[in-house]
């Protein structure tokens, strides 16, 4: 197996694994936070605006972890620096 094939093989499998494994944690965390926010909304409907705003900001923070993984996957597939290096040489 030459270098180019090896780089392609490893990049593609790692790209899938990155998003796949990296989304597990944020998914669990988002589920927990939304469930807790629903519970607090049911208990205190008056504080709805504060709870919703904090929930959105928190969700964005959590979601950015998954987005980092996604960006790394996209770089590995569409803009891979190692692949470009081996193609050029």
């Amino acid at each position, binding site marked *: 197996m030459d270098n180019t094939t090896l780089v392609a093989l490893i990049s593609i499998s790692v790209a899938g694994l990155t998003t796949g494994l990296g989304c597990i944690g944020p998914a669990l965390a988002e589920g927990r936070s939304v469930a807790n926010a629903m519970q607090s909304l049911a208990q205190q409907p008056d504080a709805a605006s504060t709870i919703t705003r904090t929930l959105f900001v928190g969700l964005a923070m959590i979601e950015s972890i998954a*987005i980092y993984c996604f960006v790394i996957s996209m770089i590995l597939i569409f803009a891979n620096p190692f692949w470009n290096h081996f193609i050029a040489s």
Partner: protein
Amino acid sequence: MHITPDNTIFWEHGFFKLNATIVWTWVLMIVLVVISRLVTRKLRTDDHPGRWQVGLEIIVLGIQDQLKEIGLKHPRTYIGFIGSLFLFVAFAALCTIFPFYEPPTSSLSTTAALAFCVFLAVPYFAISQRGWLNYIKTYLEPTPVMLPFNIISELSRTLAMAIRLFGNMMSGSMILGILLAITPLFFPVIMSLLGLLTGIVQAYIISILATVFIAAALNSGDDEQPKNIQHG
């Protein structure tokens, strides 16, 4: 398939490249400025303000109320910065309904520039409100040992802000492109609806985060608590 609109180059002369990001950013800015200029040219305070003026008032007052709720005591000082941040990102996301348009926020250069503006705006507002010494003192709180961690958090949240917006907007157009190749007819429509929703949510989030950072830099070290925490 390309990962950013930076790669679509319309015109090139030596060092200067006119790519889709720059073109669409300028188109958006010109449209926003011209609309605001036309609406605010003849403002009226009597009983018949006109539809456009009422629409603009709803937007401005809505943003102002949001800023006040988060804990900025004088939202008029900050609405120029945070409001334009929100309007630009939201408008860039909404315009994806037009064909041949690529949101400039799906390029890392644009989002990095926006995040850098927030990075500069936080010390600017904090220093202009509280003075140099008080601002620098917030880096030594709660103890001077935390100084490197405070600096790291300042840098990492800027990076996170840039990559979050870029990732969300880029994933929208990327998923659309992939789905068009797999299931061409119906499913991409639903995903583009979802893309509009995420675009608006991201615009909301980036402006809320900017507000929270500015409010934190203004309020930290004060003895009085922000009101919404006391009653919450």
